[in-house]
């Protein structure tokens, strides 16, 4: 059964690594629903957040393949209910529509959205939330004609623990020190 999973990976910030990670999905003909890459709490370490709809066993396999990449520090996956996640959406509506009635303003209040910029031609509204929520606001606003709409990839944070990357790196150092390697 296909379900939605959030795959997270920490990696070195190296050129080409995004490609190395996405081809793991391409090779298995798995579609990426959303992808966010950004610097983590530690400088030089990137965090990938990838959303897929797949069978659990395939996701397990993919996560192992991601972690196998030399420049990847750690990869894991979660179900939606194990993480707190958000997406951000921006909407551009005609300012005239905002002026003609109070409906847009009411929608902005109801949806906990906010107005970022108003010019005489257009107004830009921002909303953070789950996809259904940003979609719902889009449909509401679109009755007045949305000029432009954009939604980001997902960002997610676990419920179980903090992002203790520095502790992880210390553990990794200890692990690497414990392995006696062949010297050939």
């Amino acid at each position, binding site marked *: 059964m296909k379900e939605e999973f959030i795959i997270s990976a920490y990696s070195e910030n190296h050129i080409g690594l995004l490609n190395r990670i996405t*081809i793991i999905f391409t090779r298995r003909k798995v579609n990426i629903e959303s992808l966010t890459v950004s610097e983590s709490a530690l400088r030089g370490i990137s965090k990938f957040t990838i959303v897929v709809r797949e069978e659990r066993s395939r996701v397990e396999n993919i996560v192992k393949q991601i972690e*196998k990449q*030399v*420049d990847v520090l750690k990869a894991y996956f979660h179900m939606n209910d194990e993480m707190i996640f958000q997406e951000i959406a921006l909407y551009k509506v005609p300012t005239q529509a905002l002026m003609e009635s109070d409906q847009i303003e009411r929608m902005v209040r109801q949806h906990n959205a906010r107005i970022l910029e108003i010019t005489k031609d257009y107004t830009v509204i921002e909303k953070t939330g789950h996809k259904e929520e940003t979609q719902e606001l889009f449909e509401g606003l679109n009755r007045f004609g949305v000029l432009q709409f954009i939604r980001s990839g997902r960002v997610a944070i676990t419920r179980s623990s903090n992002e203790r990357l520095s502790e992880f790196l210390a553990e990794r150092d200890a692990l690497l020190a414990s*392995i006696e390697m*062949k010297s050939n």
Partner: protein
Amino acid sequence: MTAPSKEFMEMKQEAIQMTGAEAVIRSLLEEGVETIFGYPGGAIMPVYDALYDFDKQVRHILTRHEQGAVHAAQGYARVTGKVGVCFATSGPGATNLITGIADAMIDSTPLVCITGQVASPLLGTDAFQESDVVGISMPVTKWNYQITTPEEIPTAIAQAFYIARSGRPGPVLLDLTKDAQFGKFDFSYTRCEKIRSYVPEYPLDKGSLKTAADLIDGAKKPFLLFGQGVILSGAERELQEFIEKAGIPAAGTLLGLSALDSDHKLHTGMLGMHGNYGPNIKTNECDVLIAVGMRFDDRVTGDVKRYARQAKVIHLEIDPSEIDKIIKADVAVLGDAKKSLRMLTRLVKKQEHKEWVNEFHQAADIEMEQVIQRDLFPAKAGLTMGEVVRMSSELTNNHSVVVADVGQNQMAAARYSKFSQTRSHISSGGLGTMGFGLPAAIGAKIGAPDRDVVAFVGDGGLQMTIQELGTIAQEHLPVKVVVLNNHFLGMVRQWQQLFFERRYSFTEMVNPNFVKIAEGFGIPGKQVTTREELQVAMKEMIEHPGPYLLDVLVEKEDNIFPMVPSGASVSDILLSAEE
């Protein structure tokens, strides 16, 4: 002005001003490289120019095609356990390496491939002989990296060697722009010992090993499968000690062959589609299956839904992504096979499983009667591939390095060669690359100059890389090439006969006179068609001090049996086409 510190002075002494190109060669020497296989061209000319001054320290083998260079580097790596090194230029030179790199990736062969690239200001401009080699090679390399400044060269090469040979080995590609080769900098070299984002192997998994030992102690019918991981970790002796103490019959994968003496009393043969009868059927009768350094390739498992369902599976593996990938392990033991096996031997009880081992002998008798007898002592006049291979094995006292191409010749070589020492069987397993055999034999001979190297190739595969006869001739390499010539793409023809109603669609070959071709390269040879001629010529070939090509005209429409048909269970292995 204060005097420079002591540390600074020492650093200054170590660092020598040189070009990036020279730094490449010096870095390779720091890694102990003695042999490079390659082919020059525009974008790698500075490196070749630097190489010109190092002919005493390093031997460069000029192949006739970059594919030949990479396969030779693979053969060298497989026979020595060292990292194989090859050079190619940008564009077509680099893309010609890709087949070999993909082959090395799937067969875990340590390689460092260095490709020239257009100067960095030209990257992405469709410059002459520019191709995105980093992009192209990404899915088939363990790691790759583009170097655009000379300062990056020592670190990148040190990391490349460390990554290629550590953990589960694999190919690494370094793409080196022309300006990085020309640029000057202060060179100093430090070998790489760790990379924080990379765990080459996990420490000994004592808990899992204890669970595994308990399972093995309680087993009535344990069976061990050994793969190339045993060879890669140098665990041949540990494997033997373990099976001898626990009394466990063992079988090898295609790439695991030669890890255990073929005549060892617990060696029951080869696994897989054309493997031996006993190992295949007993996989589905054993109660504990111990897989060591192997990855349950589909050519080994057949239908996974009907594979060893009755058995508890213990998987000793260095690569975490192989655990549960194909076959779910009841006990997964992560780590290096040598260390894990050594510990496991200490933990298990001494046992013998006489009746169970005897069942393998009975299966071997059935196979002998129904298959092997016919292959080795045919009643018909036509020569079989099996008898040719066995004759070579006997004439070299089972001491030769056997290199095989792909197809029927490969299966005959694997089935009928006997091995008495490790790293003696070199063949393209996972990728099944036709044309691998001849160039791989070049690398094998250079890596093992004191051993007989016999390459078994088909008439099809030989013609894919036949130009490497030129390399053999130029380097005076005493490689023995045995062409198992049936004028067919034999394995495809066999499948057409068995599964496509004998519709021989484009598998028949009109071949050139291979002996004359060899002669053109200055390589002696002989064509044989009878058993008597074969006896004489094979002996002549082995005793001849230089290279030799023996063209053996074998039965045209012979088949390799036993056979697990594609998608069938290992239990349904066929001993003949009539079944």
